[in-house]
């Protein structure tokens, strides 16, 4: 027997060996190819494209006919819908729009929505149908780089001509000149049964149903052994058995049969059956009557509902709404409920069967397309409803002349609605009971990486304040889909996530063909099954998108067949087929919002991608799609990954391996991909860097100098990191870097480097290290008024009182580019009319205008320069003038710097070069970092970066440090780096023999020195430093103002006050809280204890209550205290002061 088995084994091995030799094929090349076809924000673009191409058409088709309720013959029918080119109407001429123009002149990048219609017109009482094509019903904001965008399919040169940066990913909208991105929204998946426990620990099965018609949430919960249904439409929980009976399952036995033969399930259901009986509910009629009594009142129901009975309607339309009920046949729904109950009971019997809400497979990502589609549907329906209403009103008018239905659908409703939602971020769709805030955000243009990071960000479903750890924890199912590093610190930690490099988010796919395919492949229709068979042990339920199709006896073969069809391209590549052996179910998913990623298919552990495939790819004979089409690569979603055995590398594949990863570093996202050797760092450091990379200054985009953002930070001499990663090259960080390669010596120096401070070399700063440009936008509008008057911009005064202020103005009254602008300088000499209401006739006199110039209010001592002046027309056809003010800064003490390893520090001091240590080769570091930064942070990656950078500069080759890249050659090994160092005469440790620049003698230690990529962060002292002696006060309390922008004071707060009290420094408290703040002298009447006043005419103090000046004392108290008294008095509370000595 044993021998036989061995033989078999050998036999298998032979086959195995006959396969082509397993050699590691470098599959990295696939990645750039993948990103080429996909781009970095494909998920957004795909979603939007789907909406534009399919979603919108479906919506219009579903509501294609509108009819007047007054005259049924009056109708309008939409025949087709499409989106034109982005354009704007200027002086009734259609003008093509380019995105950059929209940014500069504050307009929305939108394209008209054209419809072809057939409708009824009436003139002179005669009705006739007419057709019209290209009727514009509104304007759709267009996502940049989507299929409707002007930039679609353009190459680099054409993009440059349009003023666009070729590296810009697109995926956002331009609304009124601001770039807005609809963040990816994370949600629990719809139409799926989720088993979990509620707050009380009761097991519950919930389904969030969502169909085109309805959205509802059904919860079946087990409470005190009994099972109830909880639905919003019922006032309280109703027994599930009553519901079953109401749906026609009158026989208890059948219900028990549906749960399966196992007596345990029957036993669990027994209490519920008993309860139902205790209510004397036995028949469907009784059940319906029973439920009728539970229906929540005060809801509006139409007449048809009243006829049928509300309970019936609720059960049909609301209760698990995703299961269709055809001709009041509730059988499918009963089956579905039975499956829910069964899964619940399984979970009760075996706790492992509980679903994990945080499991990524149970999540759906909602993208811009879906969100816009909701909005569009609502607006489109509203438009139609309103059109009908107006038409009705018109038709009801007795005397009507001409009538044209088509004029009622060209209102601006859709345009305004879409624009408002995008610019405010409030999705307020009453129709779908949706009220969500903060869906859109302004694209952060602080750094290129920040922009990219924003496109991959996923907004959580929960509010951030919840103190839960579950959703925040790193989920193992996140692997490869969501970046494990990139999450913010603080309250949103773990909730806000980011997509990994290769993640794709699916869009909806049609179910119809899949359903028929399933039946063809031997799925037994559910309706033909008896209750008993539902859970027959030897067959699997086939569930498509939460809808039970039927059963299959050979699920494995079925899955195999489906997968084969998918790989052959016969069904969509994003359809997932997941066999759940525990639940005896086979899930097919084709819905949108699932995350998936490409993997190389392996047959019995042998990769399908061979050397020649990669060669063909290199020669340009293939692309990523051809790999996909030929079934070498496929997309797996999180659920299907559970059926796969994925090997990290080809060499590690065993005979059971079904897939092989393309590259391990793709588990990281864009932001984390910048870090060299992140797998050598302590993990929080990578997370810190992900947050900091977004604050680093550098190049924003190729068109950065043409952009007119409110605030731009640029580095003067940005560099490409010496130690790169593959991700850096893929996303283009090497072209738009945000940092400089600084030679760093890790040593202690001067004592100004404690607490992560760094010591900088003055000569390096002189030569341009860390120099940055800050640009701010100033704007002015040349306003036109209702009475046909307008502002005017006039010649500056060259002499006289204001001449000095107007020095920088050109003859046209605007500041000239290149002029140095100082605080109080006028940058636009504008005058406004005094009267903007009444119409003016004749010529207007000079006195009609008053000065309304605008002055620059920058900080003193900063020499800012006018960089650019741009004139454009804004939405209201006023001329708007924008000025960019530029300020070049060199680093100073207190500016914040950081390496790429979450090691931030401020500049502690700046030291002359001659005082800096120097090496044997005369190399003087640019900055000195304290070695204490290493032990607790454990950023070994930074040390390797230093070594790699040093080897890089000495041998002239960029070194790589991709995550987990050592085995596949995408990261250099330390040994190899060390060898390079030794070859060029350095120590293998990277430590050099250093001479002190002060004494001239060698240091008593070898110093770890080499280049590290340093980022300058946007936090600069110049923007933050603040002090004041005396200054402005708040009017009401007479206390100093708050905040730097108002030149406010520094507050001695509660805790500081506590310290002073504890210390007994009473006079100091007195001085701080009163004398330096709001001292005030009051007159207090000793008789009544109220405040009096000093009458300066009579030169006497008088109490206004007692009308008496006799017993008045003067005392000092804080003005805020006096204010309090008066405020109390105003609310009928009398504060009386009793003076012990006066």
């Amino acid at each position, binding site marked *: 027997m044993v021998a036989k088995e061995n033989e078999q084994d050998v036999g298998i091995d032979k086959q195995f060996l006959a396969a082509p030799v397993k050699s590691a094929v470098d599959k990295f090349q696939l990645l750039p190819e993948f990103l080429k076809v996909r781009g970095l924000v494909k998920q957004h673009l795909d979603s939007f494209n789907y909406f534009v191409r399919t979603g919108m058409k479906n919506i219009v088709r579903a509501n294609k006919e509108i009819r007047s309720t007054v005259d049924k013959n009056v109708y309008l029918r939409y025949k087709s819908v499409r989106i034109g080119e982005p354009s704007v109407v200027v002086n009734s001429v259609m003008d093509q729009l380019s995105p950059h123009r929209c940014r500069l002149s504050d307009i929305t990048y939108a394209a008209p929505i054209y419809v072809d219609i057939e409708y009824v017109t009436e003139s002179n009482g005669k009705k006739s149908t007419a057709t019209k094509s290209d009727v514009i019903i509104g304007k759709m904001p267009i996502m940049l780089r989507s299929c409707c965008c002007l930039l679609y399919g353009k190459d680099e040169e054409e993009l440059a001509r349009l003023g666009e940066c070729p590296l810009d990913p697109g995926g956002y909208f331009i609304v009124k000149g601001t770039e807005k991105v609809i963040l990816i929204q994370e949600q629990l998946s719809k139409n799926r049964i989720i088993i979990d426990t509620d707050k009380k620990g009761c097991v519950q099965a919930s389904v969030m149903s969502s169909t085109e018609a309805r959205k509802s949430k059904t919860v079946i919960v087990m409470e005190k052994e009994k099972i109830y249904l909880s639905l919003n439409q019922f006032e309280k929980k109703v027994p599930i058995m009553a519901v079953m009976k109401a749906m026609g399952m009158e026989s208890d036995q059948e219900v028990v049969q549906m749960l399966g033969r196992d007596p345990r399930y029957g036993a669990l259901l027994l209490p519920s059956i008993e309860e139902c009986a205790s209510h004397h509910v036995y028949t469907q009629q009784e059940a319906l009557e029973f439920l009728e009594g539970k229906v929540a009142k005060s809801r509006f129901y139409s007449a048809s509902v009243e006829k049928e009975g509300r309970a019936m309607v609720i059960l049909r339309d609301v209760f698990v709404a995703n299961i269709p009920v055809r001709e009041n046949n509730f059988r499918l729904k009963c089956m579905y409920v039975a499956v829910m109950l069964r899964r619940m009971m399984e979970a009760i019997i075996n706790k492992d069967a509980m679903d994990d809400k945080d499991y990524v497979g149970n999540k759906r990502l909602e993208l811009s397309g879906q969100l816009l589609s909701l909005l569009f549907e609502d607006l489109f329906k509203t438009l139609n409803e309103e059109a009908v209403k107006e038409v009705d009103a018109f038709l009801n008018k007795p005397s009507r002349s001409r009538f044209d239905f088509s004029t009622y659908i060209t209102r601006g409703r859709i345009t305004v609605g879409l624009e408002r939602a995008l610019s405010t971020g409030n999705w307020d769709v009453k129709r779908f009971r949706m009220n969500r805030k903060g869906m859109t955000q302004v694209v952060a243009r602080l750094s290129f990486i920040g922009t990219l990071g924003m496109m991959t960000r996923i907004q959580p479903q929960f509010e951030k304040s919840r103190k839960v750890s579950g959703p925040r924890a790193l989920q193992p199912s996140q692997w490869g889909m969501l970046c494990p590093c990139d999450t913010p610190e603080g309250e949103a930690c773990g909730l806000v996530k980011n997509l990994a490099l290769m993640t794709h988010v699916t869009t909806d796919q049609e179910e119809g063909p899949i359903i028929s395919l399933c039946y063809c492949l031997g799925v037994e229709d559910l309706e033909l099954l008896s209750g008993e068979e539902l859970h027959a042990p030897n067959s699997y339920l086939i569930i498509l998108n939460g809808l039970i199709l039927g059963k299959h006896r050979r699920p494995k073969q079925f899955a195999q067949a489906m997968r084969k069809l998918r790989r052959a391209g016969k069904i969509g590549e994003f359809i997932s087929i997941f066999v759940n052996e525990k639940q005896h179910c086979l899930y097919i998913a084709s819905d949108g919002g699932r995350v998936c990623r490409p993997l190389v298919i392996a047959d019995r552990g042998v990769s399908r991608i061979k050397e020649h495939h990669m060669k063909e790819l290199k020669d340009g004979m293939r692309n990523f799609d051809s790999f996909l089409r030929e079934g070498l690569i496929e997309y797996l979603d999180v659920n299907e990954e559970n059926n796969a055995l994925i090997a990290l590398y080809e060499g590690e594949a065993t005979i059971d391996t079904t897939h092989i990863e393309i590259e391990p570093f793709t588990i990281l996202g864009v932001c984390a991909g910048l870090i060299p050797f992140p797998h050598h760092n302590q993990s929080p450091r990578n997370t810190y860097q992900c947050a900091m990379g977004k604050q680093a200054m550098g190049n924003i985009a190729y068109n950065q100098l043409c952009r007119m953002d409110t605030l731009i930070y640029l580095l003067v001499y940005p560099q490409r990191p010496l130690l790169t990663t593959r991700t850096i090259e893929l996303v283009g960080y090497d072209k738009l870097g945000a940092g400089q390669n600084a030679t760093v010596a890790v040593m202690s120096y001067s004592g100004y480097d404690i607490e992560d401070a760094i010591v900088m070399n003055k000569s390096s700063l002189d*030569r341009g290290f860390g120099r940055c*440009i800050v640009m701010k936008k100033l704007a002015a509008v040349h306003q036109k008024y209702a009475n046909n008057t307008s502002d005017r911009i006039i010649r500056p005064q060259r002499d006289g009182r204001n001449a000095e202020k107007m020095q920088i103005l050109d003859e046209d009254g605007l500041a000239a580019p290149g002029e140095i602008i100082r605080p109080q300088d006028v940058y636009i000499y504008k005058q406004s009319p005094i009267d903007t209401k009444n119409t003016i006739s004749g010529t207007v006199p000079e006195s009609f205008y008053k000065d309304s110039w605008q002055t620059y209010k920058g900080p003193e001592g900063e020499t800012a*320069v006018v960089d650019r002046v741009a004139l454009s027309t804004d939405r209201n056809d006023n001329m708007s003038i924008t000025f960019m003010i*530029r300020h070049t800064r060199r680093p100073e003490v207190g500016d914040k710097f950081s390496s790429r390893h979450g090691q931030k520090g401020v500049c502690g001091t700046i030291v002359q070069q*001659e005082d800096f240590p*120097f090496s044997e080769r005369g190399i003087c570091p640019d900055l000195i970092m304290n070695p204490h930064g290493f032990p607790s942070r454990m950023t070994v990656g930074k040390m390797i970066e230093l070594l790699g950078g040093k080897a890089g500069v000495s041998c002239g080759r960029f070194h790589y440090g991709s995550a987990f890249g050592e085995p596949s050659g995408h990261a250099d090994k330390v040994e190899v780096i060390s060898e390079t160092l030794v070859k060029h005469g350095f120590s293998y440790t990277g430590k050099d023999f250093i*001479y002190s620049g002060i004494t*001239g003698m060698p*240091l*008593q230690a070898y110093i770890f020195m080499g280049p590290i990529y340093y980022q300058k962060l946007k936090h600069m002292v110049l923007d933050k430093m603040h002090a004041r002696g005396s200054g402005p006060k708040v009017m009401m309390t007479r206390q100093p103002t708050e905040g730097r922008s108002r030149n406010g004071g520094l507050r001695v707060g509660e805790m500081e006050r506590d310290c002073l009290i504890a210390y007994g420094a009473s006079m100091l408290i007195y001085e701080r809280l009163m004398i330096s703040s709001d001292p005030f002298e009051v007159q207090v009447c000793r008789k009544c204890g109220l405040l009096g006043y000093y009458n300066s005419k009579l030169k006497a103090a008088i109490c206004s209550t007692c009308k008496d000046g006799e017993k008045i004392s003067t005392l000092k108290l804080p003005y805020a205290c006096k204010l309090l008294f008066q405020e109390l008095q105003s609310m009928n509370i009398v504060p009386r002061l009793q003076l012990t000595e006066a």
Partner: protein
Amino acid sequence: MEKVSVWDLPDVPEGQLPSHIQLQRTRVHCNPDAPTHTENVQYSGAYSSVGVDNSLQLEQFRKNFRVEVIRLGKEDMEFDMIGVDPSLANAFRRILIAELPTMAIEKVLIANNTSVVQDEVLSHRLGLIPINADPRLFDYKSENDDPKENNTIVFKLHVRCERGGPRLTVKSDQLKWLPNGSEFSLETSAAKSTAKPKTYTTFHTSQETLHDFSKKPIAPCHPDIILSKLGPGQEIELEAHAVKGMGKTHAKWSPVATAWYRMLPEVVLLQQVEDERAEKLVKTCPVNVFDIEDVGKGKKRAIVARPRGCTLCRECIREDEFKQDVALRRVKDHFIFTIESTGALPPEVLFTEAVKILEDKCERVITELS
């Protein structure tokens, strides 16, 4: 080991340091973990107990001090400075970097700049251009001084990229020296129509007539430093005023790219390294410090052939194998000095200038003291 009382040890010979102390005094020991004995013993009486005078004697210094030029190029030189204290060598280095004056562009008057490079950045770039002018022929210009021929050099840069033409790279050779001073007239003086309109400088004579400037016109040292790039229709017109300054104030006035020294390496074989081990030792050193010598009878032995080339990579003492055989040391009073000039002055002149400055400083100290 037999115990020996300290008192029984032989006396340390008077007037002469024990060898290991002597070694510590004159050599830095570059051990695998860290260098030791890097400090110089300054105190004159440090060794008085053994009768050794550690004070600095001028006679001695004169006798021992030597300078040997190893390499002298147009822009860089290497020389050995033997017999000085590190503090002295360091003083020269520091003076070279920070205290030797040169001429550098300090003020830029921009008439027009439509290039992509911002005014400040362009000015900064201009400032860093080394200028081929002997700073000794100019005076320092203080705040209230008028820019005159003896303290200011004026350059003009006027480039325009014609529309329709190809893009243009502006290089430092486009900077034209204006020996007669600024050509931009002051706005305020425009009203007075005197013969010569007032400009931003008040030159009395042309700089060309002064010194040897006619023979050797003033220009940037390197003609190919990229200043900016111009697209069609863009233009730069500016005047740059160079003044005398010191590296202390700004690195642009530093006459050296860098100047540094290193102590003479001394590699010592403490024990004989023979045959295979010798070959191995030779191979470990990436800069071929060691060589092989035939001692006859087919025997080979490692010798230290080129100690000067040692970069102190510590490869030879990295593994335990040769740790006992090789000692890496640095001679404390022998400095291999390298000067890389930016081009304004030849390196040898820079050094003599540095010496002069140090002399001045000493003189100042002496006068202060007396």
